[in-house]
């Protein structure tokens, strides 16, 4: 596969099959209800239709029942959950009524499924070829050598180069993107009429995600299979879907074609989802966060709108009566009282719900530019030795961070962007001296930290703190919130006595938007977003000047992500904090960052002011990274597809690290690492294209 510039394929392909509506739908789901043993409905009266060659996207946040819908269709529900009623016809046959032995032929045959975690869906002790052959043996008449030939064909079909060799390899020898390709090949082996893709790209990097999505589209174009795409990502929906069903708390609350939905979302929840997405136009404005959390499915009320407690448009009726499914004239369906009782007055659109007064404050702050460097990093290196043999001698080094320099002024946000494995988290930990740097210097408020003794480091620790990615792993499950918050204060002797500490804890909880009573509770009683608030309160307890935020929102739902981003932004405004924001999510970068550093394989390849880097990217890698992000408008965008995956940092390519994946690669790229080229005030890039 070679990289190339292709136009957005949706426009070329989406039309063909959707015209073809006359025939029988591939899948017709009607009034599907799935329950827990105690009667709680986790999938409630879900109905939809998928035509041949069409992609139906089920969009929703975690825990809304979208995966359970898919598992119900496959009849693979976990113990304790059962289908209560409803019908699902696959090409006219009711799959829910089939006996188990017949169902086994359907699974992997007419209906195939791919899962979120490609690493966990492949058997680690079987070669890739054997696993595909297994499916072929079950679902085709091929035997003997034909099977292995056909499995190699399938691997070629999903774009795996050197397929005969790859067929003999084990899953651990393949990268994440390749594993997902193999999963798709396995799904294709049964020549399915319907492919259920459950978050197929969530575990992958954006550039790999773009490859996989393109592959799915191509295959759909060739074979005309229907796809049921389950995702939480509006960007993926914008790129892939023809029809979209938005799920909330077990119900489909809105259903429309992609164009209709993106042009005019009807349900207040859908409108909020769009508004909660951070992007550049909203810099300086708070995001439209949906208050509260996604309710647990077991607690869903039967006689009220499930979204009512979080909906600002709700009125009395919403809490008394569950809204009926309403289909508007243009075919768009919605489950909301706004459209059952009165059709007018709802043209409110998504935009007007979000803005509030903080706007002006943020603009005012924008003016004062502090130039004093709070943190100065110079040629930071972190090398991990690769040890081998009995004597554990170092035979090589993984250069996780290889000469990174950066400056963070007080009160500013610097975003460090890159794909997984590029070393960005290592940078964060090396700054805090959690991982000892191999070389380079880190100066915090004028104090050198590399090689500083324990006492000096201890003094610095209060000034620089870290917020971690996974709020479920970053709080000790055996400690109460008060103890968690107190720990840092104790270690750094922040407050003088116990009373002072307790009042500080109360203050902090209010500051991050939590109830004071919650300090006597344990972390497991809180949701992901609340836990991240606690983690923020924990670091604020020691009055830091710089926060290193390591993907603080990547484990959270979109609506909750907006709450956390707003909190971080307002804390910066009130406390004058600086942030080093480590992320792969470019939308978040646009919303929060003043400056952006793009990292590839341990080195900074481009740096500059956020607006410039994001809107006028220079480095081919930055350009590819940006174009790989699915845009929710999805209109008329040229995309650069990156072939292949990031090489291992233990053996980086000669010359420019990126040249093997770069479409502009020149001979000199493989010879020398490019020096820094200045392309604008404060904007520089490491690329031979800009050498003059």
């Amino acid at each position, binding site marked *: 596969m070679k990289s190339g510039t292709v136009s957005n394929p949706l426009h070329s392909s989406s039309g063909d099959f959707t015209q073809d509506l006359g025939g029988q739908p591939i899948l017709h789901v009607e009034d599907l209800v799935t329950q827990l043993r105690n009667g709680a409905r986790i999938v409630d009266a879900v109905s939809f239709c998928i035509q041949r060659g069409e992609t139906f996207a089920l969009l929703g946040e975690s825990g809304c029942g979208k995966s359970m819908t898919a598992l119900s269709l496959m009849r693979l529900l976990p113990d304790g959950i059962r289908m209560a009623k409803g019908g699902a016809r696959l090409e006219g046959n009711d799959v829910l009524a089939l006996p188990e032995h017949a169902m086994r032929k359907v699974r992997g045959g007419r209906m195939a499924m791919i899962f979120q975690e490609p690493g966990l869906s492949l058997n680690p002790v079987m070669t890739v070829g054997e696993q595909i052959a297994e499916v072929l043996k079950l679902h085709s008449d091929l035997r003997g050598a034909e099977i292995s030939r056909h499995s190699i064909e399938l691997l070629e079909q999903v774009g795996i180069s050197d397929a005969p060799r790859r067929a003999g390899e084990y899953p651990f020898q393949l990268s994440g993107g390749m594993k997902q390709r193999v999963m798709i090949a396995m799904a294709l082996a049964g020549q399915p009429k319907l492919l259920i893709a459950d978050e197929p790209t969530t575990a992958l990097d954006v550039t790999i995600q773009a490859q996989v999505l393109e592959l799915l589209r191509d295959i759909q174009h060739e074979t005309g299979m229907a796809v049921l795409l389950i995702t939480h990502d509006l960007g993926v929906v914008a790129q892939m879907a023809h029809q979209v069903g938005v799920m909330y708390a077990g119900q489909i609350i809105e259903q429309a074609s992609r164009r209709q939905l993106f042009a005019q979302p009807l349900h207040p929840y859908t409108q909020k989802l769009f508004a909660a997405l951070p992007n550049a136009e909203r810099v300086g404005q708070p995001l439209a966060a949906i208050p509260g959390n996604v309710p647990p499915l077991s607690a869903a009320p039967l006689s009220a709108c499930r979204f009512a407690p979080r909906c600002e448009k709700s009125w009395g009726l919403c809490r008394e009566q569950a809204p009926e499914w309403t289909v508007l004239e243009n075919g768009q369906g919605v489950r909301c009282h706004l459209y059952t009782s009165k059709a007018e007055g709802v043209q409110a659109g998504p935009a007007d719900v979000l803005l509030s007064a903080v706007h002006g404050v943020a603009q005012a702050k924008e003016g004062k530019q502090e130039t004093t460097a709070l943190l100065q990093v110079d040629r930071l290196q972190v090398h991990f030795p690769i040890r081998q043999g009995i004597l554990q001698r170092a035979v090589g080094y993984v250069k996780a961070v290889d000469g990174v320099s950066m400056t963070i002024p007080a009160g500013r946000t610097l975003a460090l962007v890159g794909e997984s494995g590029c070393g960005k988290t290592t940078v964060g930990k090396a700054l805090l001296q959690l991982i000892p740097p191999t070389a380079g210097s880190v100066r915090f408020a004028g104090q050198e930290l590399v090689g500083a003794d324990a006492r000096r*480091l201890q003094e610095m620790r209060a000034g620089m703190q870290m917020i971690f990615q996974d709020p479920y792993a*970053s709080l000790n499950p*055996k400690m109460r919130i008060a103890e968690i918050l107190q720990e840092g204060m*104790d270690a750094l002797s922040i407050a003088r006595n116990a009373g002072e500490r307790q009042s500080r804890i109360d203050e902090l909880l209010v500051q991050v938007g939590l109830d004071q009573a919650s300090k006597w509770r344990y972390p497991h009683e809180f949701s992901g977003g609340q836990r991240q608030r606690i983690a923020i309160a924990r670091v604020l307890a020691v009055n830091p000047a710089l926060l290193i935020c390591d993907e603080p929102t990547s484990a959270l739902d979109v609506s909750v992500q907006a709450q956390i981003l707003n909190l971080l932004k307002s804390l910066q405004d009130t406390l004058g904090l600086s942030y080093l924001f480590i992320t792969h999510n470019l939308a978040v970068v646009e919303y929060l960052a003043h400056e952006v550093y793009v990292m590839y394989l341990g080195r900074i390849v481009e740096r500059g002011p956020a607006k410039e880097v994001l809107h006028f990217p220079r480095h081919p890698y930055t350009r590819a990274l940006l174009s790989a992000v699915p845009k929710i408008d999805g209109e008329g965008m040229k995309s650069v597809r990156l072939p292949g995956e990031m090489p291992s940092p233990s053996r980086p390519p000669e010359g420019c690290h990126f040249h093997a994946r770069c479409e502009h690669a020149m001979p000199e790229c493989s010879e020398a690492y490019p020096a820094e080229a200045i392309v604008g005030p404060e904007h520089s890039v490491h690329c031979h294209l800009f050498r003059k």
Partner: protein
Amino acid sequence: MPVILWTDAMIYLLLATGFAAALWIRKRPHLVLPWKRVADSSTGMVSLLFFSLFLLVGLLDSMHFRPALPEKIDGQQVYSAEVLSLFDVLASDMKSRSEKTYSAPLAAYLYAKESMETRDGTIIRDYPRLHHGGAHLADPASELQEDVLKRAATGAAAGGLAGVFLIGLAVGLFHVFARIRPRMPGSPSGHETRAADWKAAWTGCMQRKSVRALMLTVLLLSLALGMICNLAAAYHVLGTDKVGQDVLYLALKSIRTGLVIGTVTTLVMLPFALLLGIAAGYFRGWVDDLIQYLYTVLSSIPGVLLIAAAVLMMQVYIEMHPEWFETSAARADLRLLFLCLILGVTSWTGLCRLIRGETLKLRELEFIQAAQAFGVSSFRILTRHILPNVMHIILIAVVMDFSSLVLAEAVLSYVGVGVDPTTMSFGTLINSARLEMGREPMVWWTLAAAFGFMLVLVLAANLFADVVRDAFDPRLNQD
């Protein structure tokens, strides 16, 4: 004169720790929760009941004293050289009524024919009557069966009554408890509400499956115990051994040995496993290398060989210093203690490896890194963050190890490097059965007794451990 043997002290210490832990846990709701789940499980409560019966016997057998002798020397009270336990006093009948040699369970005659001289001087060869077992019968051949049934029935009836009384007592205590409770500050008082509260609490309690199962078991157990007690007053319920000792008494005495081996060994092993495991997992580097080499080497030496060598050395040492011991019981006890020590020192490797693995996983978690970023000291991280999070593993491993240690003692005694020959244990019982199983007619009851008691003890411990493990497993308890 009370005597506190070394192992007694250990047992008291363990009990005290257990009570302290219970009090400590009571104040922490997240620690109480899993134990509530244990209390909700019928299997858990029934196995706990069986286990506590064994524990009760073991405890009674751990309160030692030397009885005062009737005569005085120079006005000074003289104490017997024999060390008795409270249990010995309670079971003194069984202890003292020894026969000449083997007799089958519930028999009135010896197991082997002997030549006896009748009053008229002729010598006949027949089964002689037992001195104690069924001695009250005039003609055992015709009366024995009827008498056994009658005694069993009356015993069962008495036991049943006692069981009903016990349950009644428990209900009464519950009542009193429920009446006292509302008087605590902050609760509403008043007789009607209290009565209503009590009623509600009582019906709620009775609706729990575990409570009903527990009551049923108490009733059945007291029937069985009543039966056995009544029979044991006149017969040898489990027969007698080679020198005529009551096998039931021997088996009951063995319980203490089994418990001591199971618990004291754990006490010895735990610090090794815990400290070394956590240190290896958290510090990595040379500390980890050192500890890993240590336990790899230790676990590659055949366990029995190592234990045999240590026990034999210790045995010789004890033989050479008879002046250290006032009584033979003290000597036997020290040998038991050393056996525990040796077993403990050789068996910590498995748990250590387990804890090291868990710590390796924990140290990469973000809350540990957050603590490091705050500059929290290593010691505090180990005790506040890592230790509470490996506690469930320790708890499970300890209960699981208990049963394997009881079995290990049996194996060691069989090999001949176990406890002192004068100490009664399941191992010595099984060891003696080696010859008995080989003779004709076979003497089966010693082995059967040891087998049955060990089975119930180990099964109860294992089932309880299973329930505890499930209760502490967060994946099984998401609700």
